């Protein structure tokens, strides 16, 4: 195709729209001035302060734990749900099941959060569990949301998978459980990784539903950032944002290298 200057310009405007704010955030994280919009020379002091900020560190650690737990839970449940939807053919209530599994994708999070809160309060009154709100309740809510996404991702890969691969394994003497672990799991592994990462990411930056089910002493990173920004933007947030962007870029780059290398 002919590369006209207008087309190039459009591309730059597009990329600028997407990435200029992030670039700006990264630049200002090295700003020596406390004023967010005034450049006061290069400095890495905000990174130092960030690493001294125990509230941020605690929140980040909690967020990572919740994200890893809920992503793993979502992966297991999502795989099972996808298997039922793709492999069990038609059964009574399949449509209802499908609808219920994917409902969290379209349901407003504020409703999900509120509903979960009511459930947890009622459960606690009845059984004494969960004991207050915190890690467990947040992880359960994130698993619910993550499972919906994981199901969709894994289901599409399962549907594409040549079923005769599983039949061939069975024909060669492998029992169904062995077929699942030796053939099905490795073949759909990329979608499992994608589903886990997706659930992990969703959990990591969820605010709305988390607000409802978090308790005292269980503040996740996005909630911590959100509340600190309300008191005025500290350049520490810029530093935090930069670290996250770089971490995400490195992970994506690694995944891309790995999958490209595999194909070669």
């Amino acid at each position, binding site marked *: 195709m002919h590369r006209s200057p207008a087309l190039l310009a459009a591309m730059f405007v597009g990329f600028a729209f997407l990435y200029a704010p992030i670039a700006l955030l990264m630049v200002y994280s090295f700003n020596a001035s406390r004023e967010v919009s005034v450049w006061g020379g290069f400095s890495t002091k905000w990174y130092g302060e960030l690493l001294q900020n125990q509230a941020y560190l605690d929140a980040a650690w909690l967020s990572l734990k919740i994200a890893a737990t809920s992503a793993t839970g979502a992966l297991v449940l999502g795989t099972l749900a996808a298997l039922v939807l793709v492999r069990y053919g038609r059964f009574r209530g399949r449509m209802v099941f499908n609808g219920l599994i994917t409902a969290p994708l379209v349901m407003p999070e504020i409703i999900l959060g509120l509903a979960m809160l009511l459930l947890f309060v009622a459960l606690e009154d009845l059984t004494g569990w969960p004991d207050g709100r915190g890690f467990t309740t947040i992880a359960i809510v994130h698993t619910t949301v993550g499972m919906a996404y994981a199901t969709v991702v894994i289901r599409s890969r399962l549907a594409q998978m040549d079923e*005769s691969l599983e*039949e061939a394994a*069975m024909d*060669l003497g492998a*029992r169904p459980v062995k077929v699942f672990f030796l053939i099905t799991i490795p*073949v759909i592994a990329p979608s499992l990784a994608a589903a886990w990462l997706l659930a992990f990411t969703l959990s990591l930056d969820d605010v709305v539903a988390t607000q409802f089910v978090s308790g005292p002493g269980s503040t996740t990173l996005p909630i911590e950032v959100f509340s600190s920004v309300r008191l005025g933007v500290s350049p520490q947030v810029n530093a935090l944002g930069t670290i996250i962007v770089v971490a995400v870029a490195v992970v994506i780059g690694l995944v891309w290298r790995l999958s490209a290398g595999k194909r070669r």
Partner: protein
Amino acid sequence: MSLAVRPEREIRPPAIQIRGVEKRFGDATAVDGIDLDIQEGEFFSLLGPSGCGKTTLLRMMAGFEMPTAGAVLIAGADMTAVPPYERPVNMMFQSYALFPHMNVADNVAFGLRQDGVAKSEIAGRVAEALDLVQMGDFAKRKPHQMSGGQRQRVALARCLVKRPKVVLLDEPLSALDKKLREKTQFELVNIQEKVGITFVMVTHDQEEAMTMSTRIAVMNAGRILQVGRPHEIYEYPTSRMVADFIGIANFFTGTVESSAGGVVTFRAQGIDAPLTVAGDLAPGSAAAVMVRPEKIQMGREAAIGVDNSVSGVVKEIAYLGDVSIYHVRLDSGLVVLVTNANLRHAAEPAVTWEDRVHLSWHSGNAVVLP
């Protein structure tokens, strides 16, 4: 049409016995009461149009489908309720179904590992199987690094390495292009003869079935229409459907006038003189006489001393190089197909459009079908 005549085999106990097998999916009947014996060492083909139930029958032999009624016996043992992973048969899938995350050697070794074969033995047997299909140099390749023909060989090796009683092949050559397919047909037959394992193949390609098989079962609508060796199916079909499905056939419909001494006199619609044909049918019954196009002689003059003779005008000629197909319209409007081998090197055909020709055939070269 290639008609490879294969040596006859001694009769041994059946490798597969199908006893009154039916298979219904809801209201639809895929297999409608089939009885069939496949002998040990045979290269047996299930031939039929798509949806005739041939693949379902094959999958019931493999254990992927349970018959609604009837029994499947393998080497004399009832296997009807035995799951696929415990049957002494291996299947080669239409898509080959090579495991994409394993290399060729691991693919072939998979079945042996499931059986708990000793590691030291596995390496030798895998190498042996790969050598048999001339893929010994490809052991470390992944499936996506190979051509369709190479994958097909690996899939075959993966079946053979377990030394099954029967190898089931589901349209094994349909993914290959025409030239490679013809070459592979003979290779597959040679390998089968070398290992001596019973092969059961599903195909919709009649040439493939004729070339490769010792026997063929022609199927339609869940039933077997005829079982026989390739030339029996072609020369002596027992029904109009088989005659029509295998090769090209001219049908003359009409009624049987008389029947004596194995010869039927037949009154065909659109032909004045009665036809004679070898066969035995009750006088007065409605039937059809079938003549293959290559069994008909064509000439400008009426042939002398033949049983059946009609005349007509050449309306169409399909020149195929080795043979030509003539469409001859009889005076009654009936169109008869005649194939003539182009034996002489000539620029001009001896018979051309609008020529009046006489067609004749011997009564032994036609079949009367009810």
